[in-house]
């Protein structure tokens, strides 16, 4: 019990990390896209937990809301909408060069790992993120992120709002079943 208390963070980290990796492996290996999607959901939630461990509570909430709540629903919706059979009847679901690809991926990983071990990160320091202050007042994570997001990072924030608009336009352009288009008008003379 004392061990559990003393090493609480470590234990939580390793459990979450292990589950996140298992989820990732599931995404790549499950044949059925629904199963892949569910294991991806697991990874998203574990990553959100890992964010909390690093004092990024706001991000954790965003991760759950946007990824688990938004993107995941979108994925499952499309999978259900288009009839699972269409998506995965092939007996062979991996491309022919799969072993080569795995090898290449592992090599890239080994290379990056080597670089990380041989190099070093920038020095740690400064005020703990949990205790950022503005005008002498200590802020919580959400408030601190808000101050930064709407002041210093206002320009990329505005640009991102246009990105979301573009995504909406794109989803409508591709998804809309337009009557005049489907009758094939003008399709020939292109």
């Amino acid at each position, binding site marked *: 019990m004392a061990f559990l208390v003393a090493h609480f963070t470590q234990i939580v980290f390793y459990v979450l990390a292990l589950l996140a990796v298992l989820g990732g492996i599931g995404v790549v290996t499950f044949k059925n896209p629904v199963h892949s999607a569910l294991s991806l959901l697991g990874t998203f939630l574990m990553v959100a937990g890992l964010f909390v461990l690093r004092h990024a509570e706001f991000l954790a909430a965003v991760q759950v809301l946007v990824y688990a709540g938004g993107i995941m629903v979108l994925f499952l919706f499309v999978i259900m909408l288009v009839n699972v059979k269409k998506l995965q009847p092939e007996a062979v679901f991996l491309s022919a060069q799969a072993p080569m690809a795995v090898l290449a991926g592992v090599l890239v990983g080994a*290379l*990056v790992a*080597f*670089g*990380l071990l*041989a*190099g*070093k*990160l*920038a*020095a740690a320091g400064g005020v703990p993120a949990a205790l950022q202050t503005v005008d002498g007042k200590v802020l919580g994570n959400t408030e601190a992120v808000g101050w930064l997001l709407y*002041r*210093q*990072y*206002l*320009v*990329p924030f*505005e*640009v*991102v709002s*246009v*990105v979301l*608009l*573009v*995504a909406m*336009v*794109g989803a*409508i*352009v*591709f998804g809309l079943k337009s009557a*005049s*288009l489907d009758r*094939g*008008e*003008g*399709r020939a*003379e*292109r």
Partner: protein
Amino acid sequence: MSLSDFIPFVPEIFLAAAGLGILLAGITLGKKGVRTLIGSGVAALIVTAVLVWVFGRPQGGPQVILGGMLVLDNLAVFFKLIMIAASIIALIMSAGFLERSPYGGGEYTSLVLFATVGMMVMASGANLASLYVGLELMALSVYILVGYFKLEVKSNEAAVKYFVLGALSSGILVYGISLVYGTLGTLDLRGIHQALAGMAKLNWAAGLGIVLVGFGMLFKVAIVPFHVWTPDAYEGAPTPVTAFISVGPKAAAFAMFLRIFLGAFEPNIAAWRTVMWVAAAATMIFANTAALTQNNVKRMLAYSSIAHAGYALMGIVAGTAMGLWSVMLYMLIYTFMNLGAFGFVILLESRGYAGETIQDYAGLAKRHPAAAAGMLVFMLGLAGIPPTAGFMGKLYVFAAAVQAGYVGLTVIAVVMSAVSLFYYFRIVVQMYLHDGEEDEPAELIRDRWVEAMIFVCVAATLFIGVYPGPMVGWARAGISALGLG
């Protein structure tokens, strides 16, 4: 931050608002309003260009504005005006094409405008966050434009391939950015420059971040071996979109490339220069060779645009002030030449996919001497033969490389330029030496707007080729202000 701080950002805000307005107008106007919508898009772009000139220019030296997110300097103004010009020409060229198709004009025009906003942010970003966000705004808009003709299998397939590889590259880019942040402690380009300059020797982890960011950038400008998406995306996309993506996004990616590599990562040039050298050489050799065997003109022009990115990359390898402004000048010249060449592909596309094979150009000189002469100018320009601007562009990039001591790379470039003559001249031979009676060549469409734009491109290609002084002067003024050092 007060409201007046946003004055230099007015052009982007105006353009995004105009895009939104056109999107809404497109819903009410429907299929009939293609010309109106494209016309208002062009008007908005012209107003934006004026706004950039009035509000977007730096007073004195480079100014970092809006919390360090953007920088106002001549590099930004130069690239913004190139991109706006590219968007205007590509939009005008799309009008007739879109009218003949069953697709509407509202989404199309507004996506071009949104992509232009993204490109403008890329040209003036001073922080990896704003650069990345601008890049994604441009990339997402362009994926949709490539797949815009959703009932054409080719267009759809091109969008799928472009999307998967594009998203992968942006994932790699952002992973690289996260490593750069972890090893240098900041996202600010100036801060990164200082941190790197302060390091006695390059730390492996930082180097890895730089390499991954480099991979992402090489993908966006389509350098071998990250070019695999280009031929398919260019062939499958609707031709005006191909014309647009071969110039605007390429110029924007080069602007971002210059800012990150010749700005922020400049202290470590010795470490990444060799990679770029190899990539540039491989690109020029591979793309020019692959273009020789293409029978589809769009695909040939795709390989030609890969080769041109390879030439421009030489300026980055050189890493000098001259290298930098020669890339800027190259992008300006390439924009006009490439848009003009694609203009002819649009004009010939009268039936089905006509105008796309080289045989469609047979005997063009006899039937339409003026058109053949115009195409000849662009082919000469792309091959880099005087008195066209293409020659001037190559001259300065090659000179920059030689000056920096890269004679071997320049020799490769000159040899491969000679090879490129073969494929550009296949079209010239078809136009002038074949009568085209037996091949049933494609007929030119009468579209005076496309013709006018081609005329503008011919004029620019010849004018800059004969009298490059002002443009060179303008590009050179740009580098007094990289805004990072």
